[in-house]
């Protein structure tokens, strides 16, 4: 885009970035939509709670030394047997449910965001190459995408996860497990980015600024990354938002199925799997609160994504 700055533009944007943003259609649309604002507030609140967790909760649920069996199976504080400081009760290990939920929320968000980062990078990279270079490379990448699109992402994530565990043997530490899940999610969701970016790149490729960049002798990688890429990232943000919800669900599902994060470092999905065992013995709070946290998070992000998609869609304006 740097080259284009010298050409006089019809409508020169004025003021600072913030002023420009406050003047934009996006902000106006956001101000009009109560759903979008509520979803945004809920999402930000959950991010804040999750990342402030170590300073606000009474217990570190990853540290077995802080668990006390004398405090096990306490109901939430508003019940008769509830005890401070365990606001939402404790599980059979004496683990504080609120602490576990907030730490789990943090883990789910981290894994989800890393998953989106990996799938986005992979998808954008492959889409860029396929769209710009074209030819045989394009055919191969898009055929692989077609084949992968035939299968649901969760199945691919399960298989990648299972095969990797088989290849490395059972001896993976927690960090390696997190990495493995991030990679499984990344490999399951790259297709959508690749398809979107590829089609935008094919449009951009023929434009004058790309021709100009080529004429002044810039190399293909430089044109692709510095000139084409910034012009095709718009729709990617919408996909990324919706994919964040999907990535979080995928991680939670893997953990729920027992192939995700271990019980010593539980994400929301692992907590729900643990809590599910206590459903029949009456300790509903062990599964209810992680469930509510997961549902709230996913619905808020989805609503935000829906709004963003409509707001950025020129056909609907």
């Amino acid at each position, binding site marked *: 885009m740097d080259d284009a700055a010298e050409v006089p533009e019809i409508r020169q944007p004025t003021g600072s970035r913030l002023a420009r943003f406050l003047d934009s259609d996006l902000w106006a649309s956001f101000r009009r939509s109560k759903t979008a604002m509520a979803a945004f507030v809920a999402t930000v609140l959950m991010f804040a709670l999750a990342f402030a967790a170590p300073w606000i909760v009474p217990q570190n649920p990853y540290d077995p030394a802080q668990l006390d069996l004398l405090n096990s199976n306490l109901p939430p504080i508003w019940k008769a047997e509830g005890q401070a400081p365990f606001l939402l009760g404790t599980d059979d290990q004496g683990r504080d449910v609120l602490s576990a939920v907030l730490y789990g929320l943090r883990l789910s968000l981290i894994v989800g965001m890393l998953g989106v980062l990996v799938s986005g990078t992979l998808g954008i990279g492959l889409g860029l190459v396929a769209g710009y270079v074209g030819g045989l490379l394009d055919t191969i990448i898009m*055929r692989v995408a077609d*084949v992968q699109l*035939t*299968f*649901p992402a*969760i*199945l691919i994530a*399960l*298989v990648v*996860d*299972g*095969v990797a*565990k*088989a*290849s490395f*043997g*059972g001896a993976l530490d927690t960090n390696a497990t997190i990495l493995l899940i991030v990679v499984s999610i990344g490999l399951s969701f790259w297709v959508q980015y690749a398809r979107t970016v590829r089609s935008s790149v094919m449009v951009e490729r023929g434009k004058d600024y790309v021709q100009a960049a080529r004429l002044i002798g810039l190399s293909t990688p430089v044109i692709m990354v510095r000139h084409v890429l910034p012009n095709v990232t718009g729709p990617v943000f919408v996909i990324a938002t919706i994919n964040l*919800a999907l990535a979080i*669900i995928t991680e*939670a*599902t893997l953990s*729920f*199925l*027992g*192939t995700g994060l271990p019980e010593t470092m539980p994400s929301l999905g692992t907590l*729900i799997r643990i809590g*599910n065992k206590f*459903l*029949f013995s009456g300790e*509903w709070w062990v*599964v209810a609160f992680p*469930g509510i946290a*997961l*549902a709230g998070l*996913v*619905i808020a992000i*989805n*609503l935000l994504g829906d709004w963003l998609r409509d707001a950025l869609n020129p056909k609907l304006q």
Partner: protein
Amino acid sequence: MLAFLIRRLAQAFVVLGVVGLIAFAMFRFAGDPVNQIVGPDTPVSERAAIRKSLGLDDPMLVQFGRYAGNVLRGDFGISYQFRQPVTALLAERIPATLELAFCATLFALGVGILMGVYCALKRDTVLAKLFQAVSLIGVSLPTFLIGILLIFLFSVTLGWLPSYGRGDTVRIGGWTTGFLTVSGLKALILPSVTLGLYQMTLIMRLVRAEMLEVLRTDYIRFARARGLTTRAIHFGHALKNTLVPVITIAGLQLGSVIAFSIITETVFQWPGMGLLFVQAVQNVDIPIMSAYLLLVAAIFVTINLVVDLLYTVVDPRLRTSVGRAA
């Protein structure tokens, strides 16, 4: 049409070939097959003999050829966990999964179409708005959470329906069915609703959108002008024309239903293929994993092929555009 058919068939075989290659690679390279058979104190010479007898020293191409041949004859190897042929294990589990998928699809189609029509015809009523809100939640929530919620409501709190298993089943030939006993039918309700909910919301939204579009067209206005009853217009003319895309989506989603039954079967401890697959992943039972993968791939490819072909048969407009694209 013939060219289209041939190209789609070729594509289907390529997909199956690629999945077969992946399944073979898993089978051969993820973990050492010999280690799964011998104990820790087996001498090296004996291991080498086993390697040779399993043909693991042959060239890769020969091994893949042998694997493909076995698969085509229905031999997927021996399960590491159960020490039984994978084919027999899968065959035993298939009825449970198919019955569940069938009921889930039936539920999704029946309830989804009803709710969609209602939302389109009475779109400003409170109930229609409620349906819309519920559909948003149905799309957003993970399957396993919905399953747990239903168990909590109908099994734990109300005690109406069983929370796990298939109930009593009747064996007819090689097929065990839960359709013929009361407990079998009761056991089907919660898993089917859980599994079909996502498809139901999808169909509901689709029917609603299509109906709203169709109701604006000229031929509906003409039907009104002819003085036909509202009932005849809505169900005879409008709904009928929305059904083509609905059937397509329902068909395409059948594959997802079978894949997502992995999660539902785990929640409800439903003894189907999905539960077998999850146990295989947990216990690194590669033969079952690769067999399941191939089976699901075959189901997916067949469904996609059939839907594609049906679509061109049902909708003549598509036939010409396909011809032009070729």
